[in-house]
């Protein structure tokens, strides 16, 4: 745990002010003006040598990175992400997409349909069966007394 969490104690102001005065004196500790004059030249030289030592691929990557940033690379990434998500949602929630099999004009019928080719019914098959000649117009068959006795 860092010491910031401790409760601050009262300071000895006189001692602290002397410490602060001594620290303030440190601002005079700096190199002479010649150093600052030559700093820029050294910086430029270092930059140039860095560029020369860097590989062509590295330079290309750096340039692409800078260009990508300047055209708002983030926006493009977000846009592409949103478009991909929209397409994915569209595919996933397409109505009856899973139920309907794809049918084309040239597609063959399923195998079970191919093997069941029954002959077409003839005219006689479609005609209703003939009524017996003894049937009355009410659909009842007349019965004689002798036939009842047999029963």
């Amino acid at each position: 745990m860092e010491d910031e969490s401790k409760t601050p104690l009262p300071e000895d102001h006189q001692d602290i002010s002397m410490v602060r005065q001594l620290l303030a004196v440190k601002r005079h500790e700096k190199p002479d003006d010649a150093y600052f004059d030559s700093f820029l030249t050294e910086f430029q030289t270092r930059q140039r040598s860095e560029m020369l030592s860097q590989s062509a691929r590295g330079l290309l990557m750096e340039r692409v990175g800078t260009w990508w940033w300047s055209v708002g690379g983030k926006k493009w990434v977000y846009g592409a992400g949103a478009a991909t998500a929209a397409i994915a949602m569209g595919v996933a929630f397409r109505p009856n997409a899973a139920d309907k099999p794809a049918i084309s004009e040239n597609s063959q019928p399923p195998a079970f349909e191919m093997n069941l080719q029954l002959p077409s019914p003839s005219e006689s098959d479609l005609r209703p069966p003939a009524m017996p000649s003894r049937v009355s117009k009410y659909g009842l068959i007349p019965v004689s007394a002798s036939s009842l006795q047999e029963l």
Partner: protein
Amino acid sequence: MVTPNITLPLSVAVAADSMKTAKEDTRRKPDPDKELVARAQNGDTVAFDELVVKFTPKLYGLVYHMTSNHEDTNDVLQDVFAKAYRALKRFQGKSTFYTWIYSIATNMTLNFLKKRNRRRAMSLDDVDSAIENDPDYIEATSKSDPVREANIGELQERLNIAMQQLSEDHRAVVTMYDIQGMPHAEIAKIVGASEGTVRSRLFYAHRQLQTYLEDFRK
């Protein structure tokens, strides 16, 4: 719903407008380096050179007082400007350029110090001759016999050793506040902490330094 059309007297409207502007001004100061930065972002290398020249002495102070070593300071500073140059296109002006480059320098120095093995502090031989006329120095020597008796080089070395005893985070805030005279709010922005944390770090750093510089008390 009909909104009542209220016409304010001109003086009231102007006063309200000026108050709004003043409020915005206090919230965000204009960046004095805006033009140079814009030119540099458009590929003007001379503009970037001007920024380097302008900020080198200030950043040198920051890095030097954190590392206490001139060679290290030079290397870190070169890297700071190289990094700033590469990242300049990404600078969007949400803070001032000054705060932005100070943050880069602070972070890079802290990273450097974490990697660096404890190396002996190598103080600069050059101390500005203006030190003898500095009011803080005059007052410190008037208060304390040991300070008066110590030569400037010795004093400088003792201060650097004491500074190196502090943690990197504490050293950074002491450098910015006590040596460079930056306000708490600015330091808080640079180190990415609250003002309370900055004050707290200063408090404990001062107490530690007070112990390390015990000999300089009367």
